[in-house]
């Protein structure tokens, strides 16, 4: 009966299975799966670490005050819990960074993918990787001790404070250039040559081909790269803590000192708040907000790739 069953369903596992299972192979697979599950455990750990103190925080401070006020000073007496100054500073520094990084990174990507010779590419891609590997404390130090004094000398009318959003944002921008450049270059390199050749055959120049054919074809990858860079900029801590400062006054002028969400977490987390106090729980509430924002952007980035990817073959 069973023999007949096997012959009627050829190619299934049952027909080719060994009479004696290899337990070693199962053990290996189980070990590998466990290793992969560590990453899931990490996410669960992050959510648990954030959730409990955040819930306790919102039991003491109303959501209306958190999102409805522009006074921030959980370490002051009396404390204030309006998160807007942190959000505004984060958005502003991220915007400055994007304005710096997107044009430069994209142009560098087009150059490396479309114009540079094989040799040139082989030299410059590793150099960009080195730029990507520079620790952020170094960028922060450079912004604080070189860029800010330079700008104060060159543009005295800007009235820059010793720590300011402009220099911090500029260096956050430099930090994310390699992310924009290298991910965009990858997606441009994946555009098949037939598209370029077709464009040349129609008489288009190299510039037209790059701008009107290659960039649109690689669009989903480029947008995903930019969103990823934005989320990196929004979560950057050391540059903004060193060069942007910790003052959380509601201000829009980038020449002022301002504290982003990440900078506040760094400041309060490195010892300014006593454990269990409401100020300490604020760290986790702001951390949750930052986590949710970056999580949403990563999700958006992944969706962009899925939805708008042009598939060639």
């Amino acid at each position: 009966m069973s023999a007949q069953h096997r012959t009627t369903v050829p190619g299934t596992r049952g027909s080719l299975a060994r009479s004696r299972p290899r337990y070693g192979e199962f053990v290996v697979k189980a070990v590998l799966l466990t290793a992969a599950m560590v990453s899931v455990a990490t996410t669960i750990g992050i959510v648990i670490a954030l959730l409990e103190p955040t819930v306790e925080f919102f039991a003491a401070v109303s959501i209306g005050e958190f999102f409805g006020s522009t006074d921030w000073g959980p370490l002051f007496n009396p404390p204030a819990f309006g998160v807007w100054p942190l959000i505004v500073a984060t958005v502003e520094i991220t915007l400055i960074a994007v304005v710096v990084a997107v044009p430069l990174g994209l142009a560098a990507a087009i150059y490396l993918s479309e114009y540079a010779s094989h040799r040139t590419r082989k030299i410059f891609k590793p150099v960009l990787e080195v730029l990507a590997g520079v620790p952020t404390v170094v960028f922060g130090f450079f912004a604080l001790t070189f860029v800010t004094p330079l700008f104060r000398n060159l543009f005295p009318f800007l009235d820059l404070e010793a720590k300011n959003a402009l220099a911090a944002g500029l260096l956050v921008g430099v930090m994310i250039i390699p992310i924009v450049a290298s991910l965009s270059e990858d997606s441009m390199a994946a555009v098949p040559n037939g598209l370029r050749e077709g464009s040349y055959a129609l008489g288009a120049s190299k510039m037209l081909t790059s701008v009107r054919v290659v960039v649109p074809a690689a669009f989903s990858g480029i947008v995903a790269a930019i969103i990823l860079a934005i989320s990196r900029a929004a979560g950057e801590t050391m540059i903004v803590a060193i060069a942007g400062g910790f003052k959380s006054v509601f201000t829009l002028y980038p020449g002022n000192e301002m504290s982003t969400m990440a900078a506040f977490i760094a400041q309060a987390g490195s010892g300014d708040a006593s454990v269990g106090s409401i100020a300490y729980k604020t760290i986790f509430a702001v951390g949750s907000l930052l986590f949710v924002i970056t999580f949403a952007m990563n999700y958006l980035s992944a969706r962009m790739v899925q939805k708008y990817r042009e598939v060639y073959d």
Partner: protein
Amino acid sequence: MAILSTPRSAVQLASKGRPLKEHLFRIALMASLAIALAFLAMLLLYVVEKGWPRLNSMLWENQPSIRRPETSGIQSGILGTLWIIALTAVMALPTGILAAIYLEEYADRTKWYNKLIELNISNLAAVPSIVYGILGLGIIARWLQFGFTVMTGAVTISLLVLPIVIISAREAIRAVPPSIREGSLALGATQWQTIYRQVLPASIPGIATGSILALSRAIGEAAPFLMLGAATLVRFNPEGVWSSFTVLPLQIYSFISRPQEEFSILASAAIVILLAILLLMNSVAIWLRNRYQKRW
């Protein structure tokens, strides 16, 4: 007649000189790359020039001091970083590589839990490092009661670099063509024998390159350690995994936070050491990739 006339773009193609616009575009692209690299060059020149007077043996022979910046060293930071990196290599690399093998060689992508793992890893790769600091503080230091020790720092940083290790190891494994696996399986090898004797040896250079780059990310990371009580000036070397510690980037941060110019010079010198370590690791990674990368 109009049909027969040569299109203008064809004339442009035929003529040797390119129109001005093309040249300007090309120059603008090159300038963008040059500006990005100029920042890197300026930064390097600036720290080397500023840190030069302090680049001597006192730097690694002495412990940091608040009162005497002119003879202060960074020994505890260098040793702390070495401890953290060694432990991270021991914990994150095997876990990451095993997870990558699972995802590339075993996982059935139609299963919901495998999709969940994949989505989860790409999300974790983009979580801000300060949030990992919160994880270290809330779960590892307090809940597991590891305290503010080398172990807490190493576990936190291992979890931070794990997605990077997994993603780069997966790429290296994926680059091995299926024909290698099919050949091995056809000769009667089991799946694990195929992976262990064929796929892994072929992808080792790629995995090594990715691992080195991931570890160099761990070396430069400072934000998570801020949350783990490593911010204070530690004047002794770590004696074991349960000892308190500081790392080089945080030591630099604490120097930068002080107003005196001597600390700024000291910070520059420490940055030169940090960058030298990172450049060395990057060069090894690039050399490995160029030397052993196979085109199938």
